């Protein structure tokens, strides 16, 4: 009885803990330029949030919308 309770509680705690939202998620971001997908590399945490809040990437040729989602 005790073993079953202990094992189940541990397994459930492990699953719930490991499935919790990570506050430091990382995503590969890119923008589209002249029909091509230009990779910007991986952004994490606050850097990712800042990039998405800005929403665009600007270079000498123009302003491009940034995407960090996976589809």
């Amino acid at each position, binding site marked *: *009885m005790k073993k*079953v*309770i202990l094992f*189940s*509680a541990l*397994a*459930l705690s492990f*699953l*719930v803990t490991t*499935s*919790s939202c990570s506050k430091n*998620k990382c*995503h590969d971001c890119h923008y589209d330029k002249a029909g091509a997908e230009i990779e910007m590399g991986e952004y994490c945490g606050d850097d*990712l*949030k800042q990039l*998405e*809040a800005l*929403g665009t990437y600007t270079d000498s040729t123009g302003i491009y919308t940034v995407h*960090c*989602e*996976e*589809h």
Partner: protein
Amino acid sequence: MKFIALLVAFVALSTNAQKELSGFVKSKSSNLPIANARIHIEETGETSISDETGAFMFLGNFPESIHLHVSAIEFESKVLAFTQSAQAQGRQYLVGSKIEIYLAERHLDLEEITVSTGINVQKNKSPFLIETRKLSDLNGITTLNMGEALAKIPGVYQSSLGNGISKPVIRGLQGIRVVSLLNGMRMEGQQWGGDHGMGISEVGIGSVEVIKGPASLLYGADALGGVLYYSDDAYAAVNSQSVKVQSIYHSNTSGGTLRMLYKQSNQKFRFLIGGSYANHADFQLPNQKFAQNSRFNESVLKTALSWNGKNKVHHLRYSFNKVMSGLPGHTHDSILNPLEFQSELQRRKQTIPAQFFDNHYLSFENKWFLEKNEVSLLLGQTMNQLTEYDEKVTIPGIQMRLWNSLYTVKWTHSFSENLKVVNGMQGMFQNNVNGPDATERLLPNSLSFDNGLFSMWMYSMDRWNFQAGLRYDLRYIKTLEEFKGKQAISTSYGSPNASIGAIYSTDKCTFRTNVSTGYRAPHPSELLANGFHHGAFRYEIGDEQLRPERASQLDVSFEVKRDHLVLIVNPFLNNIQQFIYLQPIDSMVDNLPVFAYKQLNKVLFYGSDFGVHYHPHFAHDLHLEAMYSYLNVLTSTDSSVSMIPPGRFMMSFRYQLDLGKKLQIKDLLVQYTYMNKQNKLAFNETASPAYQLLDASLQLKWNGKTPVDVQFGCRNILNASYIDHLSRLKNISLASPGRNIYISINFNISHQLKKQ
């Protein structure tokens, strides 16, 4: 630590000198003892299980008047009402002396206790036909979510968005027109949105009751379609502990669920604690491809604590669930390509668009019992947070927090054995707050305040039971800001409601009839909408002049009961005035059609449920059940009510086996569903063809030192490709899940504690 010390002190003070309540449960025909009979005190929630000699015992403080609900497999259920020194049902039952309870053998027992009508009453004494189902029965064929399980009840359907989001539909009405309650506390979770999840998990839930049709008398505004009343699993039997561990694997989603529930009870207090975790990848379609982004996961925590003193009982409950659900078929494109939403690969990793909903439910229920009076106070606090990530992974598209504070006060007075009244007051205060980071707002920050007064009378006379009641409700809505070009509003709606019903019941037949009314105040989303609703692919415009919907229903049911056969017919008429619906106007905004909220003077929902349960005498272990639900809608126009469920026929064949000693084959269940075509359509709706499904399961039991139940099953055995008429994925032609083979392993261990 201080809290625990205070709690222990409080429990100790709440309990006084203990009394003994004990007796025997015996067969009426043979006079032999009945082992494993369940004896439950309705007022306190305490349970005792009879031993091999039929003996049971409670030791503690009991109210002056109590109801014992006694049930056993293959026997009738009985409710015995008595006071400490009084007579009940013509027999003398005394606390402190042994009680003898006799149960007649019955193969089909349908006389469950219902709690959703405001008082505990046996089903054959309630003028309202209430469908009561144990969750374990609904899961004879294992389901992935609560909505799927509920859709096995006559007249109840589900409207789903993949596996992660499923909402109940009662007699054709859903969303804001269906009210859900958890142990009497109203659950609010932005249910006005068709793509907003339910927020309840199966862990720790023992049964569900469904009231079909308007039920404003008992639960206030909004319940025009019906009420779902979830009740917690019973506590462990007195002086025992139990643990239930369940693990399920589904091949279709390459996913599963792990659940655990621990219970312990002694004479002073009872508690349960449990949790579950489910994780499912994209579901597989009948064409072997996968529904893109239909993955979901769910974490649940559930706790409940109960203690009782002299003439009082308290229940403190808290549960939390957190769901991440992908949004399959979510698009901003105006031209849809169904193949874009199917994938060759099955994925599990969270992506966008996705919906997250967190639900906290806290309630404190108190009951005080006096000789002829019962007073109850339920206080509750809920919080629902709905977050949707759409275009960006760190900035939510939508984020809303809905805080809801609730109270219910009830006073029940018995004038005599035959006449009883329940008077009460009920209310809730809601506060909807948008997250500061969200890029879009579906609703403004707003408040609403509900209050209702009601009085319900019950009278019994021979085989007749009558019930009638009156209620008045007032809802005040105030928005706290200008919203999409519309000024803040401050308005109130009020409505009287009533219900009256009668039941005539004998051992052979039951006849019920009742008339009930309900009302629903317009929701701020209907009053103030002015923007895109991407999930529905339309631009919506609200109307501040909308008036409350009013419903009145006539419901009749007739049951024929024999030893081996039960037949039931349950026709109804539900007339809704000022029905609010969306009407297309000849306009487009950014390639999306524009719809405006309008009202119809009158919409009539009518139909019937039919059921038969046959248990042949020559095949003692065979149960055949069939049911058919039919619904139609009449309007002054022919195309304003959408998502009308088609006719549904369900048949199940269950054979209970008892083969083997160590390894037992327990149960074989085959279930067939035929869903009729639906040609009754609203604007922009398309017809749905008929489809049929075949499911089966086999349950084995291993009687080792630790008993184990194993269930194998297969859903959609024929791998039928179908799109349900109520599926939210119908617009992208995405079929429902294909064949699903599952295995469920259950450990259910009980252990007797040392008597204190």
